[in-house]
């Protein structure tokens, strides 16, 4: 299994990804520590609509943490596809038959690799958040950053759930057909958005701002905690079911000469 995981790591150009994240993390820590909230001069503060003083450098670095979260979710999705894009069963049936291990182990290595990648990215996100939060001194930026924690677990759960749907799709149908289905779903969502802007009530969007989201989160704390607990459990259960489905797809149509 270790060898297969290393194969996946090389296949997704893992060294380049690790180096990029490492350099970005180092740069972020240096910037965060150097431009610490309490060292900043008055020029970097401005007043928001509610009269709170907001440190602009803190705001930029807090946004960097948000971007890391969003990019991590995207990375989990891309890594899941990269793991399986060249491995649909019609292409590599002979290759798997020649390996000195079971088909299930080969498939498990892809799921385990993505699980490890998601765990590492989530851990890195929390480290970024901890380092950023320690040097913020105004409450607005603290709340803004804390909001990212609320969405971290459900976000990663969603990414794992998407991977659980896409991976068997790519393995069974092949890269071409699966990509077409994905584009079709994306187009469907885009059409819905266009319909909303043409015929819906876009004034709803004007009422959504940071404070309204913050108030909504405070009002639904128990529900969000429940979502934070249940979403990883549900997504991991679906991830396991996806693995069993992938194994079943590989089983069907295979000539087993053992």
């Amino acid at each position, binding site marked *: *299994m*270790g060898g297969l995981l290393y194969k996946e790591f090389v296949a997704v150009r893992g060294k380049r990804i690790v180096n990029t994240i490492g350099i970005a993390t180092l740069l972020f820590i240096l910037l965060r520590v150097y431009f610490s909230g309490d060292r900043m001069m008055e020029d970097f503060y401005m007043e928001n609509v509610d009269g709170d003083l907001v440190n602009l450098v803190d705001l930029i670095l807090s946004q960097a943490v948000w971007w890391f979260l969003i990019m991590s979710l995207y990375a989990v999705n891309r890594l899941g596809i990269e793991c399986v894009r060249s491995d649909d069963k019609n292409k590599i049936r002979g290759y798997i038959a020649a390996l000195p291990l079971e088909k299930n182990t080969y498939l498990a290595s892809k799921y*385990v690799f993505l699980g490890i990648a998601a*765990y590492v990215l*989530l*851990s890195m996100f*929390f*480290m970024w958040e*901890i*380092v950023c*939060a*320690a040097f*913020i001194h105004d409450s607005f930026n*603290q709340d803004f950053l804390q909001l990212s924690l609320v969405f971290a*677990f459900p976000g990663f759960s969603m990414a794992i759930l998407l991977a659980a749907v896409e991976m068997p799709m790519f393995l069974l149908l092949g890269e071409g057909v699966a990509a077409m289905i994905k584009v079709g779903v994306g187009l469907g969502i885009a059409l819905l958005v266009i319909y909303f802007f043409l015929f819906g009530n876009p004034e709803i969007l004007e009422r959504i701002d940071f404070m309204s989201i913050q108030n909504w989160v405070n009002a639904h*704390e*128990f529900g969000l*905690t*429940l979502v*934070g*607990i249940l979403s*990883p*459990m549900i997504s991991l259960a679906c991830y396991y079911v996806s693995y069993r489905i992938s194994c079943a797809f590989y089983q069907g149509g295979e000539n087993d000469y053992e």
Partner: protein
Amino acid sequence: MFLTESAAPFIREGRMIMNDKILSAKKKEAQRLGIFLILAFSLAWVYFILTIPKGSTWDQMTPQFQSLASLGMLTPVIAHVLTRLFTKEGFALTGEDSMMLGIRFQKSGWAWYLLAMLLPWFYQELANGIALLICPELYDPEYYKVLGIDQKMLLLLPVSSIVSGTILSFAAFGEEGGWRGYMMPKLMKLMGRKEAFFTGGIIWGLWHAPLTCIGHNFGTDYPGFPYLGIFKMCTLCIFLGMLLTYMTEKSGSVWPAAILHAVNNTSPGILNGYINYEKVSGLRGNVAGFIGIIVSLLLVLTIFWRLERRRRRVGIHS
């Protein structure tokens, strides 16, 4: 008789060579362990000094700075990696003298991960129950309100702690990757099991000393602060270390130990919301809590020990 008499010098020489080899191997392991401990302690203590504001206690630090200081938990695994770089031991992930990073779910391997998630809840609730039996005055029916926890959230606390502890176990992995992944195997090679558990616990407890001295583990308001706190920490680390080492040995990986450590740190007990140590002055409340956790850990270890003995007996007879 003839063969024994003529072979005796060779046997003696062979034993001397073997003894020299064993001593040389032990000396090498001791040197490696020494490098690791120097790195683990220096990296951690420098980090703690840099991140803990001068003169403040743990409670005086903001939650954000507490989290920042807690990232010092990553230093043992960093020390582990650096030690392997210096000593050229290699970075094998599984097997003998490895970093013990393998994950194995087959052949009931998954059971160790499940146990790691559930055991802290079990022994912490038991510890709280024992503390209440010894010192009923600790009971405060509304203490959870003082802690700012909703009663509904309190009932969710064990599951929430298990889920968040498991998923965010990277900090605990930072400790276990060093202590169980490197230190304990080296100590086992250098001395007997009991001595290794005792020594490992003392080392681990002393490593926490800068945090214990600012009140991270037991607060600052107790007689004998901070020396009694350091003693308590070392004792706790001995027993918890035995459980963590056992789980690492049986699973062949540090990951169950990391998960158990992480869930333990999130304090998953519901009774935590009803026990108020500030209600009881002096040492009595603290001693009750301490006895509670030690007894519950001993109980868990005894159960594992008896199961292990039965398994070996069944193995011998079959």
